[in-house]
């Protein structure tokens, strides 16, 4: 037992993180479930109808969290990829790879729910507006990251190549975020800022609860997926054989 301690000196070892993630993900999944139930209840049964957008505004309870997560997951993914590039840590690339599919799904949901909102409100599923276009580029960046990673057989080289793509693409995230300020876009500006909110308080509460629920979901699913990636990449090690036996 004492000799095995030496394998644990690095907190960032995939073996250590595999077990840590296994302990953590059920808690995040449980929080996501509870918060989602509360958020949907507030969103559908407590929050009042919107004066301008009628009941159609309720799409924001899924659109805003999905959009925020699609941007934030990208930054987290790029940060992990950058750490892997700088310090050559194996786990970093695995975490970045675990985040990409979830980020891509949120970017897709952001675009889809946006289109379902845009059709009745603007009269168009899609416009080449700065915010919509930059979000579409975000989806392509996620897909490009995953495709590039999958196209290189050696996982460590794949990590490095896709890390460069992730870091370069990170410039797109502030463009999305500030697009409604920098350009005269059709997409409305932020309803919530540090100065306050232009929404009814129950609407805001419901939206924030849903944002936190999506956070918890993203963390839970990324932890689960990173365990898959660790198992796959470390399958020839002794500890994996012991872990699955």
């Amino acid at each position: 037992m004492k000799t095995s301690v030496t394998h644990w000196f690095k907190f960032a070892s995939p073996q250590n993180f595999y077990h840590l993630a296994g302990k953590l993900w059920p808690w995040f999944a449980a929080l996501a479930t509870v918060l989602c139930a509360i958020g949907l209840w507030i969103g559908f049964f407590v929050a009042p109808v919107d004066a301008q957008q009628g009941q159609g505004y309720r799409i924001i309870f899924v659109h805003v969290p999905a959009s925020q997560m699609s941007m934030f997951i990208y930054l987290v993914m790029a940060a992990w990829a950058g750490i892997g590039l700088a310090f050559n840590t194996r786990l970093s690339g695995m975490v970045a790879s675990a985040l990409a599919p979830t980020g891509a799904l949120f970017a897709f949901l952001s675009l889809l729910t946006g289109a379902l909102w845009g059709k009745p409100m603007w009269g168009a599923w899609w416009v080449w507006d700065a915010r919509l276009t930059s979000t579409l580029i975000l989806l392509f960046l996620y897909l490009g990251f995953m495709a590039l990673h999958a196209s290189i057989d050696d996982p460590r080289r794949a990590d490095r190549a896709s890390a460069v793509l992730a870091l370069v693409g990170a410039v797109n995230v502030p463009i999305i975020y500030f697009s409604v300020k920098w350009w005269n876009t059709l997409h409305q500006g932020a309803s919530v800022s540090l100065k306050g909110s232009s929404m009814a308080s129950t609407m805001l509460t419901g939206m924030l609860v849903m944002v936190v629920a999506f956070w918890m979901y993203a963390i839970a699913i990324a932890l689960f997926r990173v365990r898959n990636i660790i198992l796959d990449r470390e399958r020839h090690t002794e500890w994996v054989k012991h872990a699955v036996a």
Partner: protein
Amino acid sequence: MQWHSWAEFWAMGGYGFYVWGSFGVTALVIVAEIWQVRAQRRALLRNLLNETNSQDDIHSSPSS
């Protein structure tokens, strides 16, 4: 409570298709993602067990 009847709730003031479309596809995507990572884990564990078992067979097989 914002609604007088279930019919009113499902109609969403005429935005039913858009609202339920948004929430429905989101729910589907999340369920599909959960299913995918679980299936991936099951497949990985199956392969890993097969690999270790087949290696054990080689080691334990009588050489005579």
